[in-house]
C-alpha cells in the first residue's frame, strides 16, 4: 500500500497532479450546476410576478404567440 502511494518516489508529483485535476474539474462542474439552478429559480420567480399582468393584457392585446 505504502509502495503504491510512493509511486517509485514520484508520489509527491503524481498525486498533486491528479488531486488538482479532480478538484478543479469538480469545482467548475458544481459551480456551473449551482449557477444554472439559481438562474432557473430566479426565472420562475420573475415569471410568477410578470404572469398576472400578462393575463390581464392578453384580453385586450394580441396573444403572445410563440415563446421564442
Amino acid at each position, binding site marked *: 500500500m505504502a509502495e503504491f502511494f510512493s*509511486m*517509485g*518516489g*514520484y508520489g509527491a*508529483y*503524481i498525486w*498533486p*497532479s*491528479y488531486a*488538482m*485535476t479532480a478538484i*478543479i*474539474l469538480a469545482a*467548475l*462542474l458544481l459551480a*456551473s*450546476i449551482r*449557477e*444554472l439552478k439559481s*438562474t*432557473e429559480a*430566479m*426565472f420562475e420567480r*420573475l*415569471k410568477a*410576478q*410578470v404572469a398576472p*399582468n*400578462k393575463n390581464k*393584457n392578453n384580453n385586450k392585446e394580441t396573444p403572445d404567440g410563440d*415563446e*421564442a
Partner: protein
Amino acid sequence: MHRFANPTRFLKIAAFIQPWMAGLTVLLFAVGLYMSFFTAPPDYQQGESVRIMYVHVPAAWMGMFCYAAMALASAVALIWKHPLADVAAKATAPVGAAFTFLSLATGSLWGKPMWGTWWVWDARLTSMLILFFLYIGYMALQGAFDDRARGAKASAVLALVGAVNLPIIKFSVDWWNTLHQPASVIKMGGPSIHPDMLWPLLVMAVAFKTYYVWVLLVRIRQELTANKVRILRLKQIHGG
C-alpha cells in the same frame, strides 16, 4: 445544423443528453483512472512519473480543442449571427481555461522530476501560457462593455485572432529546440507509443471530452435561462 440553432429546441435536446454525458463521464473516468494506475506500465526511462501523462496530455488537448471550438463558434456568431453560437463560445471559455491551466500545472509537476525545473521559457510552454491568457482576455473583454452585444462582438474577434496560436502550439516542438518531447500520438505514421500506455491515455482523453460536453450543456442552459430572465425584467419595467 439549423434545427439545433433554435434555443427552445436546443434546451429540450440538452436536457435529454445531459444525464447520458454525466453517466458516461463518471464511467470513463473510473475506467481511465483504473487503467492509468493499475494496467499502464511504468516508463522504462521515466519510471512511475509517466502516469502524470494521463491527465497532462488530455488537459492540453482539451485546452486546444476548446479554443478551436470557441473560435469556430465566434466565427459563426460574427458571420451568421446564430443565436446559439455566441452562447456556446461564451460557455466554452472557462472550461478551456481550466483545461489549459491544468496542462500547465501538471506539466510543471512533471517537469520538476524529469527536466529538473518547474518551468522553462521555451516555445511549447510559452505558447500554452499565451493560450491561457487568451482565455482570460476573452472572458474579461466580454464583461468590459455596458452593451452586451459589443462585448460579445469584441471578444469574438479576439477569439478569432488568437486562433493563430493553435498551430504555433502544435508545431512548436518541431520548429524550435525545446525540452518538451515531440508528438508521439497525433503524428504522421501513427502513434509511436505502446498500446498499454496509449489505451489509458485515449480513455482519459474521451473522459475529458464528455466532461466538457456535460459542463458545456449546463453552462449553455444557464446562459439561455439568464437571457429569458433579462427579457422578463424588461417586460416588468415596461409593463409596471
